[in-house]
């Protein structure tokens, strides 16, 4: 049925415009908007924006054992954080961590997505299996890794397996040389987050038009690596960029597994752990901790913008 021929005939009469003046006060949609977003907005202000502002303010004060200081010290806290070595060392730790975890998680989640995408049976089951670890907390997973899988005693799971091959027990977390602790930290995070990024890649894979593969096949492209290299991977560029950005931000925020797996160490402290110890753990120096938080925030913003510039995050499809 053509709609164009009947449209005029069926068009309803224009609604009668009310001649009464609009009532004062909030309109219905405005009221509903504030009703539903208001509480969250208040929460955002109270729990995010005020603390950020307060932290920036604290960073210019001598704030030991107090968050309401009165001694202004200018940029001394910034100087302290950038010169005491521990905070800058934590940035190196982060760089090592990010250099391992970002590409490995990217590759693993993409690999899982490709595998699950091509499955012809039990697809939902395998998606769930790989995604489920996302629901586990970092603290719980870290404790399982520490006390069960990578325990240094003879009945730790990894040591048991290594024992079958005659390898002596390894103290995975106590000994920094060789740095086996990276294996523990990286594997726990991989297990926890690979499933989430797999879902993102799955969604992107499902959006690739099958006609592209058909056309490629007609043009003689071999299925497998050639198709993946020249069709799948370029089509996943936007998702890959987003995944890498999310992974990098998540790496900056790494705390739980480092805190729970490495206690009383001077190594393996990413920035958030270092700031935690500065502000809460030992020193109770909220001024220095806040200065470190401001430095870290600026650094994250800078890296994110640079990454966006180089990888093209946010550009439209036409700019690919």
């Amino acid at each position: 049925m053509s709609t164009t021929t009947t449209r005029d005939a069926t068009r309803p009469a224009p609604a009668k415009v009310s001649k009464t003046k609009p009532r004062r006060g909030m309109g219905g949609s405005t009221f509903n908007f504030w009703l539903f977003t208001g509480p969250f907005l208040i929460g955002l202000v109270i729990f995010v924006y005020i603390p950020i502002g307060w932290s920036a303010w604290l960073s210019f004060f001598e704030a030991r054992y107090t968050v309401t200081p009165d001694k202004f010290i200018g940029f001394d806290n910034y100087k302290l954080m950038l010169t005491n070595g521990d905070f800058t060392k934590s940035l190196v730790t982060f760089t090592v961590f990010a250099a391992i975890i970002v590409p490995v998680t990217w590759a693993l989640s993409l690999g899982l997505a490709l595998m699950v995408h091509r499955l012809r049976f039990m697809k939902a089951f395998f998606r769930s299996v790989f995604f489920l670890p996302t629901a586990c907390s970092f603290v719980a997973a870290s404790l399982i890794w520490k006390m069960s899988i990578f325990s240094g005693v003879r009945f730790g799971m990894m040591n048991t397996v290594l024992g079958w091959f005659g390898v002596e027990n390894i103290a995975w977390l106590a000994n920094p040389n060789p740095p086996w602790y990276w294996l523990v930290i990286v594997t726990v995070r991989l297990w926890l987050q690979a499933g989430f990024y797999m879902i993102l890649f799955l969604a992107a894979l499902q959006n690739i038009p099958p006609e592209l593969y058909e056309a490629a096949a007609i043009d003689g492209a071999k299925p497998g690596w050639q198709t993946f290299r020249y069709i799948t991977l370029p089509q996943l560029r936007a998702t890959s960029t987003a995944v890498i950005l999310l992974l990098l931000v998540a790496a900056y925020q790494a705390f739980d597994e480092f805190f729970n797996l490495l206690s009383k160490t001077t190594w393996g402290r990413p920035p958030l752990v270092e700031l935690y110890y500065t502000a809460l753990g030992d020193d109770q120096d909220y001024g220095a901790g806040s200065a470190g938080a401001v430095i870290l925030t600026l650094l994250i913003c800078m890296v994110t913008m640079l990454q966006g510039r180089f990888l093209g995050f946010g550009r439209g499809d036409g700019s690919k």
Partner: protein
Amino acid sequence: MSALSNSNWDRRSVLRAAAGLAALGPLAACGGNTGREGGGSSGKGLVQYFHAYGEAGTQEAIKRYAKAYDEARVTTQWITGNNFESKLFSALLTDNAPDVFEFHPQLQMIKSGQVAPLDDIIAPVKDDFNPADIKSHTVDGKVYGVRMIDDPQFFYYRKSVLEKAGVGVPQTLEELAEAAEKLTTDKVKGLFLGNNMVSTNYALVWAAGADQLNDKNEIAYHTDDVAAALKVYRKMFTSGHLLLDAPADYWDPSALVQGLTAIQWCGMWAMPVMQKALGDDLGIFPFPSAASGAKPAVYNGGWSMFVNAKGKNVDLAKEYVKWLWIDQKKYQEDWALSYGFHIPPRTSIAESATKLKSGLPAEGVKLFTDYGRFDNISWTQAMITALEEVIANSVRKGMDPEKALDAADKKVNLELKKLFG
């Protein structure tokens, strides 16, 4: 109501708004559990913080004592995990800070006005407390905190295992290292100093004839003997004879009880569990001498009750502390002896404690008396960490002990300057 409608405060929208607010009610309630609701017969409430003790029955005991207090409703926060300090420190900055809390005597808390002096409640019984406990809680003649328990820490060992290996009780740090080597088999490690090896750092310094700080509150731990002792520690760490990365740390008796190690550093609190599991096949000895002429060492840890000086009910909190930790001797004895073994800091209670009069507990009390060293109130959290980092850097990471001690000196001196100018 249509989103395009001009009408707003009609009956249906009011009902929806009410329903929305009602839905938010439970959420508000979730965030409102400060532990201050209700009250005792007087309607007043107090909050107390305790770290989670490992001994079974302790949490119930503390809650039972609190419930027996008639003047206020006392709510207990039993804090699990290893972040008791962090939670306490952050809570003390807020309006939801505990009124009373357990901790160790530390000068920075007094200097920053976080804890109240308790002379008025302690004065009548001051002479009944272990003088060392009173000294470790005193600043400028005022006493801060009431000691609840003394916890000597020493080495436990399996007598039969040492006998079988022909190993005597180590008298020096070198002998301890040799014993660890001889006792190590493919199934059992010779020695457990804790997973990160920091639990013995005080004892190591004392046994090397040094101290954390001297009487003038200057660094006293940085000596040649301490550096030499750290090298022995490093040798032990790299030898493969130490138990590392055990599922439970030094404070838990399981490493010795489960046969993972022949010798373990632990506290007297674990003695009942160890005796139950191992019977008479259990001995104890202090941290052996680590330098020529230096005495062995026992760290007398423990916990004290403090009153938050910035709390809303300081007087009531002091009354509660007086009631529980000064007047109620039956609870103090129960707390010290019914779960793990602790030494009561009150002489009158310690003297009547029959459980500590014979056998291994009596040996523990003797080590406490002969070699026990107490907390130095000027040795604060930041300094504790600085010394722990010496262990991390020089023992576990292989840094030259002198360099590791130099690094600690910088941090400790910075802290000392802040505290004493």
